[in-house]
C-alpha cells in the first residue's frame, strides 16, 4: 500500500518538473540546428566534408530499389575516409516522412524526390540548394559533372535560374511489348491510332487485350496521350498545358488523341477491372500473363517487373502512335526520353557538403555502371552502358529507340507541371480508363485543376519551354 507522505513528495516534484518542460515546449516552428563545421577543401574532398560526418541520404525505394545507392555510399566512404559514414534510408512516401523533417529544420543531406508521394517542388523550392557548384565540380573520373552527362540533363533541374534537381536516370517513356509474342502471332506493332484499333480486333480474336492499367498508374496513359499529341501537334501542346494556359487541354491534337483512346476503351481494348487493380498486379497481366499486348511506362518497367515476367518475354520499346503521319509535327520515331529520378540537396541539411559528395560519387562512371548493371536502366552518365545492354533486350531496345529518335527526342514528364504544382488528376484518369467518364469530362476536369493551380497566388509559377 503506497504511503501517502513519500508519494506526495515524489508526485509534487514530478508535477513541477512536468510543468517546466511544458512551458519550454510552447515554442513553434523555426528552431533549426546549425550546419556542422566544414572540413578542409582538397582535391579528394572538393566540398569539404567534415571528418566523422554521418551523411544522411534518403532514397526512394521504387522500381530501381536502393542497392545502387548503397554501392555509391561505399564509394564515398572509401574516397573521403576520415571516419565519414553514409547512411542510406529507403522511403516510399517521401512527403509524409520528410515533411516533419523539413519543418523541423532537419532535412536529410540529399534525397530523391520521386514516386507518387513526392513533395511538390513549389513547396520546397526556396529550401533547396543551388547545385550550380556541384555541376562545375570534377567527378571521380576527373571530368566536370556537367560534361560527364548527356546534353540537356543539367538544364532539366533548373527552376528560376537555380539548379535544384540533379536528375540521374535516363528514362525512356514509351509503349512496351514482347517482340517474341508479336512474332509468334504474326502481329506488327502499329504506327497510327487506327492501326491500333485494327490490332485490338486481332488481339481479341486471341482472347487478349491491347492495354492494361492499374489504379495507381493510370496517369501513365495521360503520358501516352500527351506524347502522341505532342508528336502530332508540336511541342507547344505541352508548353501550353504546363503553363496553365486556359483551354490548353482542348487543343485539337489532344482532343483527337483522347477521342481515339476513348474509342479503344469503349471497344473493350483494355483489360477489364483496371480501376480496382493495384498497378504492379496490372502490369503483371502484361508481363507475366501476357493478357495485354502493350503497356506504357518509363524504362524502369523491366527492373520493376523482373520477378513477374514470363519466360521468353522479349521486352521491346515502341514509340507512341500518331493520328495522321502526313500531318504530324514530329516523325513517328520521336520519343519522350529524359532524365528522371531527381536528386536534391536541402539548404538546411546538416551536411550539404556530404550530400553533394554523395551526388559526386553517383555521377561518376563506377557508380553509374553499377546502377545500370543492377537495374538495367541507363543513367545520364555517358558511356556506361555496353552495347548488349548487360544482356537485357529492354535496355538494348531503349538505347536503340533513343538513337533512332536522334534530334527528335523530347522530354517533359521528368519535370512535369503536375509534379511541380502538386496537381491531383489521377482519379479522373482512373475513371476515364475504366469507362466511367467521357473524354470531354476528362478534359473539363483537367482544365479545372489547371485553373485552380493558376489561381493559387500562394505558390510561385514556372515558365515552361520544353522546346528549348
Amino acid at each position, binding site marked *: 500500500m503506497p504511503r501517502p507522505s513519500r508519494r506526495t513528495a515524489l508526485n509534487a516534484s514530478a508535477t513541477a518538473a512536468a510543468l517546466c518542460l511544458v512551458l*519550454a515546449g510552447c515554442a513553434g516552428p523555426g528552431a533549426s540546428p546549425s550546419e556542422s563545421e566544414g572540413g578542409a577543401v582538397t582535391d579528394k574532398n572538393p566540398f569539404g566534408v567534415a571528418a566523422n560526418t554521418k551523411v544522411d541520404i534518403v532514397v526512394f525505394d521504387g*522500381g530501381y*530499389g536502393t542497392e545502387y545507392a548503397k554501392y555509391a555510399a561505399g564509394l564515398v566512404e572509401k574516397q573521403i575516409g576520415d571516419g565519414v559514414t553514409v547512411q542510406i534510408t529507403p522511403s516510399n*512516401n517521401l512527403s509524409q516522412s520528410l515533411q516533419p523533417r523539413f519543418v*523541423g529544420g532537419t532535412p536529410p543531406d540529399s534525397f530523391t524526390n520521386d514516386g507518387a508521394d513526392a513533395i511538390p517542388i513549389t513547396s520546397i523550392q526556396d529550401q533547396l540548394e543551388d547545385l550550380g557548384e556541384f555541376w562545375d565540380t570534377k567527378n571521380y573520373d576527373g571530368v566536370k559533372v556537367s560534361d560527364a552527362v548527356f546534353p540537356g540533363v543539367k538544364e532539366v533541374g533548373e527552376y528560376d535560374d537555380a539548379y535544384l534537381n540533379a536528375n540521374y536516370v535516363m528514362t525512356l517513356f514509351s509503349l512496351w511489348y514482347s517482340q517474341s509474342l508479336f512474332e509468334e502471332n504474326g502481329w506488327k506493332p502499329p504506327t497510327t491510332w487506327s492501326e491500333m484499333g485494327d490490332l485490338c480486333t486481332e488481339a481479341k480474336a486471341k482472347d487478349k487485350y491491347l492495354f492494361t492499367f492499374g489504379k*495507381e498508374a493510370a496517369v501513365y496513359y495521360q503520358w501516352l496521350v500527351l506524347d502522341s499529341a505532342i508528336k502530332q501537334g508540336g511541342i507547344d501542346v505541352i508548353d501550353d498545358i504546363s503553363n496553365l494556359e486556359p483551354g490548353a487541354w482542348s487543343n485539337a491534337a489532344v482532343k483527337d488523341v483522347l477521342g481515339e483512346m476513348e474509342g479503344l476503351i469503349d471497344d473493350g481494348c483494355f483489360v477489364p477491372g483496371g480501376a480496382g487493380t493495384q498497378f504492379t498486379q496490372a502490369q503483371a497481366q502484361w508481363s*507475366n500473363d501476357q493478357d495485354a499486348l502493350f503497356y506504357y511506362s518509363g524504362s524502369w518497367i523491366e527492373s520493376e517487373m523482373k*520477378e513477374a515476367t514470363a519466360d521468353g518475354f522479349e521486352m521491346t520499346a515502341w514509340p507512341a502512335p500518331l493520328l495522321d503521319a502526313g500531318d504530324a509535327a514530329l516523325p513517328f520515331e520521336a520519343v519522350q526520353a529524359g532524365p528522371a529520378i531527381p536528386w536534391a540537396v536541402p539548404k538546411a541539411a546538416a551536411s550539404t557538403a556530404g550530400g553533394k559528395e554523395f551526388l559526386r560519387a553517383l555521377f561518376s562512371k563506377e557508380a553509374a555502371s553499377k546502377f545500370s548493371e543492377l537495374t538495367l536502366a541507363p543513367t545520364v552518365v555517358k558511356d556506361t552502358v555496353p552495347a548488349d545492354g548487360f544482356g537485357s533486350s529492354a535496355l538494348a531496345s531503349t538505347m536503340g529507340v533513343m538513337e533512332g529518335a536522334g534530334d527528335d527526342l523530347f522530354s517533359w514528364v521528368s519535370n512535369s507541371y503536375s509534379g511541380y504544382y502538386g496537381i491531383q488528376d489521377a482519379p479522373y484518369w482512373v475513371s476515364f480508363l475504366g469507362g466511367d467518364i467521357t473524354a470531354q469530362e476528362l478534359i473539363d476536369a483537367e482544365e479545372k485543376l489547371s485553373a485552380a493551380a493558376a489561381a493559387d497566388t500562394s505558390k510561385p509559377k514556372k515558365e515552361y519551354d520544353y522546346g528549348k
Partner: protein
Amino acid sequence: MSATTLDRAAGRTARTRRGDLGVATASHALLSIWMIIVIVPFLWTVMSSFKTTKEILGSPFSLPAELSFDNYVKAWTDAGIGRYFFNTVFVVGSSLILVMLLGSMLAYVLARFRFRGNRVIYNVMLAAMAFPVFLAIVPLFFILQNMGLLNTWPGLILAYVAFALPFTMFFLYSFFKQLPHDVYEAALIDGAGDWRTFFAIMLPMATPGIASVAILNFLGLWNQFLLPVVLNTNRDNFVISQGMATFAASAGYSIDFGALFAAAVMTIIPVLIVYVVFQRKLQGSVAQGTFR
C-alpha cells in the same frame, strides 16, 4: 438467465416446437454464412502467404506448390515485422497501463468531487474527441521536439495516452458516479485518506468496468496511425500500423505479395492466440461489468 419458469399454454407446444426448429435452422444457416464471411478471408490470407509471387498472380484458389516459409522469413527480416510487433506491444502496453491509471484517476475525481470547473473540464474533454487527430499532429511535432521527446518512446507513449484520455475518462465517469456512497462513508470513518480510499476500495469495485474500457482502448491504441507516422519516424522504431503501411507500399513496388500476406498473418496470429486463450475470461469480465 437461470430462471426456470415454464410456459403453461399447452396447446401451443407442438406448433411452437416446429416454429422453434424453423427459427433455429434459419438462425444457424444465417450465422454460418456470417462465419464463412468472417473466417474465409483469413484462411485465404494464410494460404496465399505460402505461395510464390507467380502463384499469387495466377489463380486465387490454387494451392501453393510447396509450403515454404520463404515469405515469412522475408517479411520478418526485410520488413522487420517482428521488430515492429514488439515495438507495438511495448508502446501499446505502456500506454494502456498509463491511460487506464490516469483515466480512472481523473474520472474518479470528476465524478465524486464537487469543485468549480468540474463540468467545464468534462465537457471540454468530450468535445475534444470530435476533433481529428490530424489537426494536432504538426503542432505536437514541435512541442515534442522542443521538449526533446521527438522520436522517443516516452514522447510517443505520452501522445498516445493524451489522446486516449478523454474516451477513458468519459466511460469510467458514469461508472464511478454510480459506486455506492455507503462504502465510501465507511472508509472515511475508518480514517482512510483519499489515496487509500481510491486504491483500496473504489478501484477494485470498478474493475469490471476498467477491464471493458481497457479492451476498447487496446483497439484504439493498436490502430493508432497518424501519431506514430509523424512522431515516430525512425524506421527501427516503427509500430505495426505504420510498418505495415510502408511494407504494403514497398511490397507493391517490389511485387512481393507473398511476403505481404505473410506479414499480415504475422500481425494477426499472436493477438488471435491471446484472444482464444483468454476469451473465457474476457466474456466473464465483460459480463461482470453489468450492473443491476
